[in-house]
């Protein structure tokens, strides 16, 4: 996703301002970012005390998932190639990464920016989000270091099981990114067009830190994703799936004990568009299962199972810890399309470049 930032500067101007403001206010409200809560994540695998903690209830009796949530850990979606076969880090490796996070955070809070913080080029960075331009998604407090080396737990190798065609599409997409061609508005990816980055990615990653507000009302769970102002109003009232295909499909949900289980089908086929990451694109064969389990006051265990023979040779599953932000945290208006000056500039730039040859 970090590839997105360079091109979307104009489009995201107002939202980016918020991205800067938010971490600052978050840090102010949480003056002990390196406190025991963060340390508790160190060395722990997926929380195994899920049943030990009883979530509070809404006034009408549903488990309460409400608040503003964000992914704050350092695990990448896929296991890095150099860690092939290594599902977990050693305690020493975890401690070293945790120290790096805290060291860099201190520098960020002191106003240091760019490479002076200790960030590295993408190819050399040991942790996702530590790249040179990752200030776009600065969290304002140290991220949590877990000992798992990937969010993907199935397949066991921690890698996306792309079909051969999807693998080619991903390679093509990566080669195009920031390079072009940009001959028309169809050439930028869906994020640069202010459409979406895809429903599978929204809960836990995004160009400005991936803030999400969950609001519950009787029979509904609504998720407001700050990015692209994407929104899912999910009925939890036993209704069946409808028949209309949409970008975000057709979600119905139920409670399984304290777990919200969301079942989404009827996605529209958007594979003919450019995507920043092929794995986030919906096709008509996509079947997304999501499980939201609040394992303590500040954590949702977010589990996604993605089945889509158009893009993947077999289903894959990721277990993603999502962190609750302080109560007063807000999400803000994301008027991306309304300010998408980048689109016009990108297209006129491409024309100028063509003319100059």
């Amino acid at each position, binding site marked *: 996703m970090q590839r997105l930032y360079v091109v979307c500067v104009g489009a995201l101007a*107002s939202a980016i*301002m*918020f991205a800067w*403001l938010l971490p600052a206010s978050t840090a102010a409200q949480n003056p002990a970012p390196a406190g025991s809560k963060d340390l508790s994540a160190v060395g722990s695998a997926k929380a195994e005390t899920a049943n030990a903690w009883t979530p509070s209830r*809404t*006034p*009408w*009796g549903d488990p309460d998932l*409400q608040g503003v949530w964000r992914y704050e850990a350092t695990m990448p979606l896929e296991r890095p190639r150099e860690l092939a076969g290594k599902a977990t880090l050693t305690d020493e490796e975890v401690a070293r990464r945790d120290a790096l996070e805290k060291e860099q955070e201190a520098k960020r809070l002191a106003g240091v920016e760019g490479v002076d913080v200790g960030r590295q080029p993408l190819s050399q960075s040991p942790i996702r989000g530590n790249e040179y331009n990752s200030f776009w998604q600065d969290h304002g407090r140290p991220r949590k270091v877990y000992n798992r080396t990937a969010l993907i737990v199935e397949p066991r190798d921690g890698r996306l099981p792309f079909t051969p065609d999807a693998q080619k599409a991903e390679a093509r997409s990566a080669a195009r990114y920031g390079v072009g*061609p*940009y*001959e*028309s*508005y*169809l*050439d930028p990816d869906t994020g640069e*067009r*202010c*459409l*979406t980055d895809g429903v599978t990615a929204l809960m836990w990653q995004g160009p400005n830190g991936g803030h999400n*507000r969950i*609001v*519950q*009302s*009787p029979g*509904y769970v*609504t998720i*407001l994703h700050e990015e692209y*102002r*994407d*929104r899912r*109003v999910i*009925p939890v009232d036993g*209704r069946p799936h*409808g028949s*209309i295909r*949409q*970008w*975000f499909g057709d979600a119905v949900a139920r409670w399984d004990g304290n777990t919200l289980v969301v079942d989404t089908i009827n996605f529209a086929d958007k594979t003919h568009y450019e995507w920043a990451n092929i794995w986030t694109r919906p096709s008509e064969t996509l079947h997304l299962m999501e499980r939201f389990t609040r394992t303590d006051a500040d954590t949702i265990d977010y589990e996604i199972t993605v089945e889509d023979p158009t893009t993947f040779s077999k289903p894959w599953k990721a277990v993603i810890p999502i962190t609750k932000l302080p109560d*007063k945290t*807000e*999400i*803000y*208006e994301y*008027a991306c*399309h*309304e300010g998408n000056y980048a*689109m*016009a500039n990108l*297209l*006129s730039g*491409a*024309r100028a470049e*063509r003319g100059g040859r």
Partner: protein
Amino acid sequence: MRSGLKGAMVMVAVGAVIAIAVLRLGVTPTAGRADAYTAPRTADGKPDLNGVWQALNTANYDVQAHPARPAMALQPAPPRTGPPGLGRATPSDLPAAPVRALGAVGGVPAGKGVVEGNEIPYQPWAAAKKKENSDNWLTRDPEIKCYLPGVPRATYMPYPFEILQSTDKILIAYEFAGATRTIHMEESGSSPSDTWMGWSRGHWEGDTLVVDVTSFNDQTWFDRAGNFHSDALHVIERYTPVSQYHLMYEATIEDPKVFTRPWKISMPLYRRFEKDAALLEYKCVEFVEELLYGQLGIRDPGAAQTHK
């Protein structure tokens, strides 16, 4: 005899049911009678406004009273060939060329308007700008560009919206452009920037949800007729349940940079109570890219041709 009595009792019972139904539902919902109805309560004791709602009027064309006409975008007919009624018949204003193909679909239905007193108290310069906006509707209306619709316009666009009522937050989710407002029912700080949809603080006055909306930019309109505001806009909305199926909606509009005094609109909102009523997607950005960007690129996907 017995069956006759039974029949009479049934008729009385039916009559009573009808009378109750008329009392509860058949009464014309007016603001003055709002206190006759008490809304059901949520689990935490607040009036329950949850549901999918929609306006049924022509305010999105023009919040003021207006007759029907052939199109929003008109162009003058060719000059008459003689005095009216004495020369040959000539057309009245015609739909502008870009919308002519729409025929009756592009026509504007008449409406009695939703503005109290029907007057919008523009300052003189602003009245001139409103006319200019109207004359340039096709290129200026933010609705055409799929921009966030603003408040109160989002309420009476021809799309449903859904009230999702939690305890300290109430969401209003609009189908158009996927816009969502968060109504802060608790102390919420303030907006760090001007916005399209405003910053909304809510409280209850009896059964009425009162929402105070500030921090607007100057980009949204009130309707397709070019009625507009500045970044000094301040809207106070009132949502009052008047039956199980109706809300009365009022919005008081203040903007000292544009108007000489506050003015008010009001209208009923109707519950969408069909089975499984729900908002659907209207992600219109991809619907307007060809319009906004088609001719800017090296290739125009709509024209399937390469520009030099």
